[in-house]
């Protein structure tokens, strides 16, 4: 309630312009020098098919094996164990950047894996909410929104590609489309925005267009002064705030490839271009196809290949933009999948999951947390993060408690959306 009351006092977006700077600006400066990308493997991924492999030993309860590959085939890259492809399917092409062998060989030194996270739910909506906000309850913003909140006055501070993107009005989520669309919007007065030779031909002359814009702003100010209904006042404030923010989409275009890719790779390209051009601070990316209730091995292998190809492409983009010391990437999913197959060769919902992280500030080649042979979470000592029978289960609350500290979410924002979990040094 206090949180809601507090937010009510905000008249429109751009909290940075309204709240005391100490509340929202991180200590490190007025311009963002840290960016966050969250990637949601939407539908509930199966860590045992990737970074928490188990093998095909028969379960003692008669439910069969956890996986359709032998435990002896489990592979490793540095300290990170990863699954082989199930013997029921053919893996991707050997040169695919999403092939497990290629992906882990290339990235293991920057990868942090946290296994055995208990999401305490197997509902998609609640799982996504918990994994990306740190709370099962409604009303808590996604971590990407918290990261962007200090820069809410930037036009595309938080780019959302769907999934859990609740922002608690801290920042306006921005949805994106292809490169051609950005060009159209970068030059709203151009008749031919996509043609560099004709781009300067406007619907209006420069002088006319300036007069229109000036008249529009003056009218909005007049309307606002005369308005007495609070809801409309708020809407006008929001409109004015957003209009008064320079949207330097032309700059973004300089960082975009000529042809924006499809799917996760395209989402990555737009997010990185927005980071590089100073328009965005965080983005949530979405990869679907993980809700494999039937034919799990084939469908999950396909989805994981696309996911890893996307992450690999993302990393290439990060390096191409020279942002490898500034972008942190967190990959997670709604929850996990059952440590046994159903009658349709599928796997259903399971509350235990894993996350991966890489990039700025992350010490790679590490695995924290674990599960037993039946993919049940094991407890950790909260001090040294080693397995400990008297320890605690890791939940998304711990992940977010630690992630917030790691990202520098300010104490005031943290207090506004409290997470009551032990502080674990998961990301440092």
């Amino acid at each position, binding site marked *: 309630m206090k949180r809601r009351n507090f937010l009510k006092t905000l008249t429109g977006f751009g909290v940075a312009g309204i709240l005391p700077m100490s509340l929202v600006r991180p200590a490190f400066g007025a311009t963002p020098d840290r960016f966050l990308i969250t990637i949601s493997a939407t539908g509930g991924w199966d860590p045992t098919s990737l970074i928490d492999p188990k093998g095909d030993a028969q379960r003692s309860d008669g439910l069969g094996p956890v996986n359709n590959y032998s435990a002896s085939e489990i592979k490793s890259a540095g300290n990170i164990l990863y699954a082989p492809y199930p013997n029921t399917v053919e893996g991707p092409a050997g040169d695919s950047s999403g092939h497990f062998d290629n992906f882990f060989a290339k990235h293991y030194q920057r990868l942090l894996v946290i296994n055995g996270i208990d999401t305490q739910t197997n509902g998609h909506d609640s799982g996504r909410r918990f994994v990306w906000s740190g709370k099962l309850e409604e009303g808590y913003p996604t971590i990407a929104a918290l990261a962007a909140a200090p820069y809410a006055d930037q036009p595309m501070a938080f780019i959302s590609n769907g999934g859990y993107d609740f922002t608690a009005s801290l920042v306006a989520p921005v949805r994106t489309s292809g490169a051609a669309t950005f060009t159209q919007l970068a030059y709203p007065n151009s008749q031919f925005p996509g043609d560099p030779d004709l781009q300067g031909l406007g*619907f209006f002359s420069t002088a006319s267009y300036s007069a229109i814009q000036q008249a529009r702003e003056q009218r909005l100010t007049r309307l606002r002064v005369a308005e007495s209904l609070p809801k409309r006042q708020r809407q006008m404030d929001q409109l004015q705030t957003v209009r008064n923010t320079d*949207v330097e989409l032309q700059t973004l275009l300089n960082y975009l490839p000529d042809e924006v890719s499809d799917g996760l790779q395209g989402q990555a390209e737009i997010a990185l271009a927005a980071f590089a051009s100073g328009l965005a601070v965080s983005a949530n990316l979405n990869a679907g196809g993980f809700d494999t209730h039937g034919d799990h091995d084939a469908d999950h292998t396909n989805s994981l290949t696309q996911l890893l190809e996307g992450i690999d492409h993302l990393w290439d983009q990060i390096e191409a933009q020279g942002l490898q010391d500034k972008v942190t990437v967190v990959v997670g999913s709604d929850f996990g999948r059952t440590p046994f197959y159903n009658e349709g060769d599928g796997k259903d919902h399971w509350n235990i999951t894993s996350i991966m992280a890489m990039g700025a500030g992350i010490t790679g080649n590490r695995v924290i947390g674990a599960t037993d042979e039946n993919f049940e979470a094991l407890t950790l000592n909260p001090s040294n993060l080693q397995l400990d029978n008297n320890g605690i289960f890791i939940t998304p609350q711990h992940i977010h408690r630690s992630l917030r500290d790691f990202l520098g979410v300010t104490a005031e924002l943290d207090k506004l959306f409290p997470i009551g979990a032990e502080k674990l040094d998961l990301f440092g």
Partner: protein
Amino acid sequence: MPGLRSYTRILISLVLLGASVLSHAQTGSSIPSYEDGLLTVPRVDVEGYGSLQLQLNLQDESSLTFALYSAVAAEPSLTPGATYGLDTSILSIPLVQAGTEFYALQLQLTPQELFQVIAADVTKLPGQDEYNSQCASCHGVNGQGGLVAVSLVNCANCGDSNTLINYIANVMPLGAPGSCVDACAEDVANYLLTLFQVDDSPLITQTVSALQLMPLEDTLRKASLQLASRLPTDTELGIVATNGEAGLSSVLDSLMTEDTFYERIMEMFNDLILTDRYLSGNGLPAEALNLMRIFPDAFWFGDPQSAERSDDFFSNLVTTNDSVAREPLQLIRFIVENELPMTEILTADYFMVNPYSAKSYGVFDELSFQNEFDANEWLPAQLNALEISTRQGSFLVGDIPHAGLLTSLMFLNRYPTSDTNRNRGRSRVVYDLFLDVDILALEGTRPDGEAVDISSQAPTLDNDDCVVCHGLLDPVASSFENWNDRGFYVPNLPWYDDMFQAGFAGIDRPQDQEPTSLQWLASQLALDPRFDDAMVRITYSGLVGREPLDPPGEDGTEAEWNAYNAESVHLDELKDKFVADNQNLKTLIKEIVLSPYWRAEGLDNTSFAIVHEETGAARLLSPEMLHRKINALLGFEWRSTLDFYSITKDINAQARLLDDNQFYQQIYGGIDSFVVTERLTEPNGLMVAVQERMANELACYAVPNDFLAPASERLLLPHVEIGTQPNNASNIQAIKTNIQHLHAHLLGEQLAIDDAEIEASYELFSNVLADGQAAIGITETGNLPNLCRRNRDIQTGENLAQPLIADSNYTIRAWMAVAAYLMSDYRFVYE
């Protein structure tokens, strides 16, 4: 009897003080209460003197003495809450509510004409402990309701005392029925029927009276645009002008028979049920057809695997797919259109088909379509008996027990299940959509940071942490037992015995109704008053643009509670009218449109600013609504240059605000009903850029195009010609009159000719004109910008005999500037 004499003297003097003091005595509750130093006793019976309503003001906290603050005759209908003994001068109040606690008080009238407390014992109402332990966590200590429970204040859903007692005994608490029966149920029922009865009419009156309502004419414009995607006709405006609110009501009745209205209704419901996820525009071209591909004639127009395809294969594929996908929303439309009770969306023993989907389902021959190629012709149908054998087993895909949306193939696939989920996802959706209960909100009771103990064989049956949800979820989930993960009817299969069996609200489904389990569930849902709450919530949210207010919580301010209580009362009134008219959705919509909450356009009293913080139906238009508004105001849609409009108008994907791939549907906050299911309701930087481009492009297309028509047929510029320049008084008057028309037409503003806004628009026109004329031959030409030139007829694409290319005196471009200015205005992009 000195006590009585002084008492009466004080009483008389207080009555003479007048209304300002007496107004403090207003209350509709029968229960005496103490709050902020004021002890209010709604009815004191004084033997031989009748009944009084008293208020006593605390004078001295240490001695607990009160002074008489007001006294008026009591409402005779109130239950006596106290007695005054003439012989003892003692005021006895058996029950006084102070916050959440209760006391029995005795006050002695002293020689100083003060009332002093001589006895105060803590007491309780029967049922209070039971209510607080079993009900208050969801309904609130004061009965205001919460995310999973309705308000009990003036309980609209409670019915009479016996009904409520039975309901408590058999259904409540949710997830643990049977916990409060017999005397407990009776006490709790009496407790909430007594304690939570509040006469809130003064609050409502005050709250509503603070609002300025938009005139009926403006209400009609707003309703026409929102409900029927068009402007009102002159005839309709005349009816409203002549007959006032009754006239508006009759025009609304007429609006609500138009196709565009039903499209809006389907859009509104899709925002919640999200079955448009299967439209070809939101995914692969045949997603819906693939879900029903086991029907022999699903792809009646040609085998998609075949290399040989007819010329119209793809158009048939898309039309048929979308017809199958739209079946659940068409059912809702059918019920609204025929003014059937909305419960029929669950109880209908039929589903909807058009000629295309009827062929796929194999029922075309039994139906009498007037035109087999008209995809807009929908009829109710029942599936023929047809058993299909597949690798997964035999499915009865015909002769099934239809139960409205619950047995819709699209609905069941949109909310799939699995062997472990066991239809619980479907159950959650049923509670959310049709009972207004968010079961996930119950999750907050789980202890933070601790995994739930699932060590028992069936924790969903025997672990209290689990039963909270599963006691509700699982009986409904089990009612879906005959419907498999692919949405097909597979009766007589064994069902799980380690979960709650089919039932609803504490009633087990009769065994003989096992094959028609969902029909039985639908009949139970239809009887539940929460279904009406759900319909009100869906419709109110759809029209107002936001969900009803949540209870503010324990630390909510008085203003927040007032806002919530006033809106709750309003929603109950809407529900009463909806129910009284046989659950006719049109009645509900009309009542919402006529209500002060929808018509609010300002505040008369700024002290109500917090109470009315969310009041009003102003909203950022969705991409679909903005798309339709443009068409209504300009006579064409925002697609591409008007020279190519005749081609692109037939390609839905080219509509700038409907296309989510090349254009702006997603950017502008639309949904695809799949990955993106929540609309953006507040603007961002990209959306503002869309607004700007929209205004520029549309001004470029619309203004020159308007000048092609005779003045009498123009939508935007009926009062001027291309040659009209502000060089004499008559022309200036004509230009201002046209600006006045543009403000009315585009923004709905009825302004006097000398209004400052008219002057501001005129100034823009004049400045652009003067600057432009001065620049011709230097930086400007005497022709229109390339894309603004008009060469072809927008409908036929044929070359115009007299193209419009020249703008030698810059007037067209000056009007374009005014049009762009207005079409990017707050009042254009919000409604």
